[in-house]
């Protein structure tokens, strides 16, 4: 809910006061969830933190970490006769490859729609399924991006399509899983993290157990956080406490929704439909077994297989430092393109336009009105 308990302000003040009372060494916490990125930016949470407690954003936006080639692929399908693209709104303004010398705005699904391609924004894969049933003469392709929160919904949709034997629905899959990325972040030499704010709804699916190895192998304090800004403060307070006690663990600060064991049924459906695959993350390189691909039994629902297209080599935007932003190595304002060549209206990289991209959040909600 939108933080509207009568005592939210009071709880927040108390937590901020306790954080400000922290006198230990400066610490940096990372959140790895785009929704946390946005919640922090919209609430101005960082303003309230003392200097010695820093919150940085990591690769929490599944759209941002998806390499530019996925958008190129989606655009190629969008331009294919007979295909209707259905997508979450998050992808609409993310740029695809731009030729190096080009002055034109990079291509996006929004621009392709303006040019006449049949591209529809949906809230749920269920809506896309309904569209497919209502338009048997069109081939519907669903753009399946997301992390563990969304993968079960994608799996359920695939199972429904298979079950109903819908001939005109397929999925372009780019879903990813987080644990491998966490390990990379925990061991990165140039970005020191003292604690992890774990994503609340991913944790609903995977359970607190999923972070146990991060604690065990790297001694990294972990706190699962809900999405109200006051919940993020609570989780940060917990992380500070773990540091002071010298006992890192996985603390579940979102117990009403995150259960021990997570949601086994959701995970089982994902395992039934998808298999892990080594996948490239923008900024992090290839992470083993970090992507999801349709299992052979559902291969006929893979849009990439059903509609082979010629794709030129993907071109990441020049000077774009999305990768460094996504690793938490730099702040958005340190990227030379931020706010000048790269703005929400003419973005160079995904971080600036994805609805929860770190750069978009910083640009939209920055505190100095310049």
């Amino acid at each position: 809910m939108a933080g509207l308990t009568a005592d939210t302000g009071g709880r927040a003040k108390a937590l901020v006061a306790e954080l400000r009372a922290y006198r230990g060494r400066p610490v940096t916490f990372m959140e790895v969830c785009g929704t946390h990125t946005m919640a922090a930016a919209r609430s101005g949470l960082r303003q309230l933190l003392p200097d010695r407690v820093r919150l940085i954003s990591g690769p929490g936006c599944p759209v941002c970490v998806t390499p530019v080639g996925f958008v190129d692929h989606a655009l190629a399908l969008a331009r294919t006769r007979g295909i209707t693209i259905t997508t979450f709104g998050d992808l609409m303004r993310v740029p695809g490859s731009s030729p190096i010398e080009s002055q034109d705005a990079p291509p996006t699904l929004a621009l392709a729609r303006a040019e006449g391609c049949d591209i529809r924004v949906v809230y749920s894969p269920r809506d896309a399924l309904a569209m497919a049933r209502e338009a048997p003469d069109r081939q519907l392709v669903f753009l399946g991006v997301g992390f563990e929160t969304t993968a079960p919904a994608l799996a359920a949709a695939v199972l429904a399509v298979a079950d109903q034997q819908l001939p005109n629905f397929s999925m372009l899959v780019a879903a990813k899983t987080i644990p491998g990325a966490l390990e990379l972040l925990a061991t990165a030499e140039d970005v020191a993290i003292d604690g992890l704010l774990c994503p609340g709804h991913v944790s609903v699916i995977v359970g607190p157990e999923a972070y146990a190895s991060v604690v065990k192998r790297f001694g990294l304090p972990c706190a699962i956080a809900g999405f109200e800004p006051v919940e993020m403060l609570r989780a940060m307070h917990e992380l500070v406490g773990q540091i002071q006690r010298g006992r890192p663990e996985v603390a579940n600060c979102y117990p009403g929704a995150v259960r021990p064991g997570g949601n086994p049924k959701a995970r089982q459906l994902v395992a039934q439909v998808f298999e892990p695959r080594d996948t490239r993350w923008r900024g992090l390189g290839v992470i083993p077994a970090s992507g999801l691909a349709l299992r052979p039994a559902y291969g006929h629902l893979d849009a990439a297989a059903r509609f082979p297209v010629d794709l030129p080599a993907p071109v990441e935007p020049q000077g774009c430092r999305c990768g460094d932003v996504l690793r938490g190595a730099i702040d958005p304002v340190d990227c030379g393109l931020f706010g000048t060549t790269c703005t929400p209206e003419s973005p160079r990289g995904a971080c600036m336009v994805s609805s929860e991209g770190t750069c978009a959040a910083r640009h939209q909600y920055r505190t100095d009105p310049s």
Partner: protein
Amino acid sequence: MCLATPMRVTAIDGQVARVESGGVAIDAGLDLVDDVAVGDYVIVHAGYAIQRLSADEAAETLSILQRLSESWPD
């Protein structure tokens, strides 16, 4: 990628629940959860229920919603 909302189940038809919050209703797939009954609160993401809220969390959600609607003039 975690936008999800607690919503109350008002009706169930097979694998699909009617869920509502603050007077807005949508259909949510129940494929990912078991033992959901009318009156339960579930967390809804991308049109699917991903978890049933615990009794405490449901009670807190209900009280927030009640306070919201009470604070509204009409």
